[in-house]
């Protein structure tokens, strides 16, 4: 499925007009962000109410650095390290109270709100409410060779390759013994501990991986939009990503990825027509889905697939 998706994205890259490639790349970036949230919530049962913190952090560090003509090869690891260290600190404080995700969720929420406020207040550094504008696309230089990604087409391919790479890593992780430990953590933390696992370490690792991916997604986005603004840290984005996970189907990775993409694409296309009612429509869709399909789109797909398989077996 992943290879099929990759081929589809690559074909689109050759035929679609540039403005559409920017839209699609944006949608893919949010898809990866949603998949990372699913990795945390759907597999390990850790609900992060402030995941936009790392998304915003990645966007701001990348935006600031690129405007200052910093080398992207240095910028990307720097932003990742900052995000991971912050996630480990928040994780250590938030997860210390065993089996209480509430502390972690609330701390994440409070800190992301704090960062949003800081982004507005520290005008000299962050550009205040306007944010960091006119962020250029990166030029990677290695061994005297320049890879200029300022063309939307090239940048689209870059986003696709990085995003699919991240998605593959997530998919692989959930299918390893580590993935099984995450499912066990979600189901019964005490049992996992009495088996000899260290739940705090497992949770902090999940949080660090999620933070790194969210940060990378923020870094990818800022070069398309050309702007890092305070609401990238906002509660709105943190909540949206959880809604994408719920709509897509928790514990599937691909469901939230696709739903986030569809909603982002439809937002770009429909919000100009239904400017005032778009959010309301999405809210209604969410409510209806929770009632009729609590397992999300992935759950519906799975049921249909099982039904078809059963019918085929009965017929044969």
């Amino acid at each position, binding site marked *: 499925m992943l290879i099929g998706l990759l081929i589809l994205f690559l074909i689109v890259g050759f035929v679609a007009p540039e403005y559409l490639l920017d839209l699609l790349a944006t949608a893919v970036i949010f898809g990866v962000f949603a998949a990372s949230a699913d990795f945390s919530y759907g597999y390990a049962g850790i609900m992060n109410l402030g995941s936009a913190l790392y998304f915003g952090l990645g966007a701001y560090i990348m935006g600031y650095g690129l405007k200052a003509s910093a080398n992207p090869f240095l910028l990307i690891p720097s932003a990742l390290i900052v995000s991971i260290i912050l996630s480990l600190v928040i994780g250590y404080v938030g997860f210390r109270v065993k089996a209480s995700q509430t502390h972690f969720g609330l701390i994440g929420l409070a800190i992301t709100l704090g960062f949003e406020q800081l982004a507005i207040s520290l005008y000299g550094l962050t550009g205040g409410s306007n944010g960091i504008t006119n962020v250029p696309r990166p030029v990677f230089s290695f061994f005297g060779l320049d890879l200029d990604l300022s063309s939307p087409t090239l940048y689209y391919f870059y986003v696709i390759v990085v995003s699919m790479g991240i998605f593959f890593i997530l998919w*692989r*992780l959930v*299918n*390893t*013994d*580590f993935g*099984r*430990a995450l*499912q*066990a953590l979600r*189901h*019964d933390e*005490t*049992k996992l*501990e*009495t*088996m*000899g*696992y*260290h*739940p705090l*370490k*497992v949770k902090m*690792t999940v949080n660090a991986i999620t933070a790194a991916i969210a940060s990378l997604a923020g870094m990818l986005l800022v070069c398309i939009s050309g702007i890092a603004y305070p609401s990238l840290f906002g509660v709105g984005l943190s909540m949206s990503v959880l809604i994408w996970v719920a709509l897509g189907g928790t514990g599937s990775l691909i469901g939230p990825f696709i739903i986030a993409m569809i909603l982002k694409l439809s937002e770009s296309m429909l919000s100009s027509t239904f400017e005032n009612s778009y959010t309301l429509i999405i809210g209604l869709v969410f409510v209806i889905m929770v009632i009729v399909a609590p397992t999300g789109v992935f759950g519906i797909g799975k049921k249909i697939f099982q039904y078809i398989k059963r019918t085929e077996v009965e017929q044969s």
Partner: protein
Amino acid sequence: MNNGSVLSTVNLKKSFGGLVVAGGINFSVMPFEVRCIIGPNGAGKTTFFNLLTGLIPIDSGKVILENKDITKLSSSKRQNMGLIRTFQAPRIFPEMTVMENVLLSYRSQSSIFQLMKVLKPKSDVLDKINETLKKVGFSHFINIEAGSLSHGQKKRVEMAMAIVQQPKILLMDEPTAGMTARETHEIADMINILRKEMAIVTVEHDMEFVREVADKITVLYRGDLVHEGTLDELENDPFIQEIYLGSVDI
């Protein structure tokens, strides 16, 4: 306490408000011994297991595993040292297969990076898991979801999860609860084989089972260790008969 014991407690105390659940328990189990803990409901048997494994912090006293004071160690560290337990209601992971449950337990000593590397277990690991599942009388259905098993089968899976970690001492909380007479007999046979590899402490109500497996019996009542001895000694103790066993015929 250096008396050759594999697990011992020294004056273990715990109370919840005014309720004393462990009133200074001195307990010790020798290597390869099978000990049964009996006592009426509310005597503090499961709580005693929780104190031994660190799930509930103690107020005072010591827990010693092979001459090492483990009182301040976390539950997972105690497990890493060979103190393994099962629960009264089987605690397994229902969404995983039987094989995955035991595999997860087998891999508990691995670092997080090692866990991230393995997509499919190697054949020697699979052999080890199959062998362990056979020990608990479980040779079929290893690739079905553990949640769909019967109560007795779930208990066996949890036992396999414990045994695969090669404990020095295995604490089993009511291993035969909810099992048929035949299953109870099979579990007794299993314990009689396992005792060659480890010490075993069980909390138990079924006196027939106790008779089949126990080297020694400990009687708990209201958080106190009130008697320790063989089944014969217990049978002849009128105090125990009257207060702790009531009408139960041993």
